[in-house]
């Protein structure tokens, strides 16, 4: 087979595998079986397409090939399990779906199936790392090997995570359905969390590493955009997309020529990606139109948008950022968010106001040893002209951080000038 036709089949596979697996899942109600059937269809394609050419509608071809096999599977199952009434009904329904022609499968059905698949892959019964692996595999069409490379772990580890996850899903009989309204919020939150975890994993990757790590950001963004079209009335889906688009817009400005991290306020804003900024702001507008943009992701997206809208660091609307952090504190109750709130107030209202808020946080046990607390306090003290105290804070932060480059910067600030 030529490299070209192999690349073509791989491309078709990546586009079609999630829809294929989702459609089959509805027929056979078992993730392992759905994946096997999809895979068998791929093998058939690899055998036939190089000679016959890629069919005009490859998705429908793959689905038909898989459904033929699904019918065989359901027949065998029904011979074994006829006696259980509920299972028999499930099998009959599966059989009906499997016999349906491709023209009867509506776009909405495919969308619903994809959404169900997302809910299954991100089910709270699974540990976070298993949700991530399963989502990348089922919705991203990534191979186990690619996921392993992206997460810098051996392939066997990922393979095992996926096997265990499938077992857990089967054992707990997680249904293939969009959760009932009462449960929907929590379940959607889990999907958002998985997508954002994937994004952050890619975002923390540095230049020169394997291409697949930064590409996790693109994949997370893509999944977020897909999700936002599947649940268009959910404000947080748009908020998550906004946050990711806006953060990704700074991707190429955040690392210097020697691979060092460049902080937001020091970045060359001319290198920010205007296309992604525009998309992020549009997504944020959608979130705000739906519910005021008060959710966990939309608020963070709103903060990112304040930076994106400022053509220079001096033009940043710190008052607005501080107000958004205040709302985020209400949503999260997180001490780290409180700290960021204090820093924003320090910018908006002056260092004394920020310092008072930080000092109110100093007793919080969960912030003990957190280097950003000391360095933020040092910043404010420096701006107040209390230089000795500021240097002591920078020295403290330098002793707390585990990042060598940060340590150098902090030590430099701790030295008298």
């Amino acid at each position, binding site marked *: 087979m030529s490299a070209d036709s192999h690349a073509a089949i791989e491309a*078709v596979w990546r586009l079609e595998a999630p829809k294929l697996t989702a459609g089959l899942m509805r027929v056979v109600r078992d993730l392992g079986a759905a994946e096997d059937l999809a895979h068998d269809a791929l093998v058939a394609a690899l055998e036939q397409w190089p000679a016959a050419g890629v069919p005009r509608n*490859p998705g429908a071809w793959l689905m038909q090939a898989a459904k033929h096999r699904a019918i065989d599977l359901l027949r065998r199952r029904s011979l074994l399990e006829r006696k259980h009434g509920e299972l028999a009904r499930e099998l009959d329904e599966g059989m009906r779906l499997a016999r349906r022609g491709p023209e009867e499968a509506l776009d909405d059905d495919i969308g619903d199936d994809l959404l169900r698949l997302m809910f299954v892959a991100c089910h709270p019964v699974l540990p976070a790392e298993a949700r991530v692996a399963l989502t990348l595999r089922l919705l991203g069409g990534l191979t186990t090997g690619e996921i392993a490379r992206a997460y810098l772990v051996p392939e066997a580890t990922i393979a095992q995570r996926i096997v265990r996850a499938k077992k857990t899903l089967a054992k707990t009989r997680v249904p293939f359905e969009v959760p009932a309204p009462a449960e929907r919020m929590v379940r959607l939150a889990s999907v958002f969390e998985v997508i954002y975890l994937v994004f952050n994993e890619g975002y923390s990757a540095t230049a*020169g590493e394997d291409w697949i790590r930064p590409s996790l950001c693109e994949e997370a963004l893509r999944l977020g955009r897909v999700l936002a*079209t599947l649940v268009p009335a959910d404000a947080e889906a748009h908020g998550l997309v906004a946050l990711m688009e806006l953060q990704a817009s700074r991707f*190429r400005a955040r690392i210097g020529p020697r691979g060092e991290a460049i902080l937001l306020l020091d970045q060359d804003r001319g290198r920010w990606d205007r296309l992604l900024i525009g998309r992020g702001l549009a997504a944020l507008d959608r979130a705000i139109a739906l519910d005021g943009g008060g959710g966990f992701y939309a608020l963070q997206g709103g903060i990112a948008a304040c930076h994106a809208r400022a053509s220079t660091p001096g033009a940043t609307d710190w008052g607005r950022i501080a107000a958004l952090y205040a709302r985020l504190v209400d949503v999260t109750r997180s001490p780290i968010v409180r700290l960021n709130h204090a820093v924003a107030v320090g910018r908006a209202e002056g260092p004394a106001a920020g310092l008072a808020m930080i000092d109110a946080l100093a007793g919080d046990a969960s912030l003990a040893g957190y280097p950003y607390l000391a360095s933020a306090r040092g910043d404010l003290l420096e701006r107040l002209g209390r230089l000795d105290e500021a240097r002591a804070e920078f020295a403290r932060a330098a002793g707390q951080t585990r990042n060598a480059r940060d340590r150098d910067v902090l030590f430099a600030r701790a030295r008298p000038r």
Partner: protein
Amino acid sequence: MRFMVIVKATPESEAGVMPTAEQLAEMGAFNEQLIKAGVMLAGDGLQASSKGARVTFKGKDRVVVDGPFAETKELIAGFWILQCRSKAEVIEWMRRCPNPYPFDGGYVEIRQCFEAEDFAPAAGSGPTA
């Protein structure tokens, strides 16, 4: 990876002939698929070159020439910006694109955008903008 897909101009597009309602609906459905798949970052159709202009560079001089421009085959009539994982994936998407031309033999051109890492110092000979 980001790609630009370029739709070439035709005598019809240059004459300002609007697509039929059916063509628009077909292309709209295709765009919808691109959006649902999360790969379409941007895209637009372009007006005829008679509404455009060229700024020609000659050393430090600039000469402005208003459209229309004669060489229809070199003109473009629209574009997409797609984010895909490989060129093969863009090709697969474009195989599914409704024929944008009223004749056989028309084509769209797929070009890859530069990425941040293309400008990394380690890349050496790449552009340095």
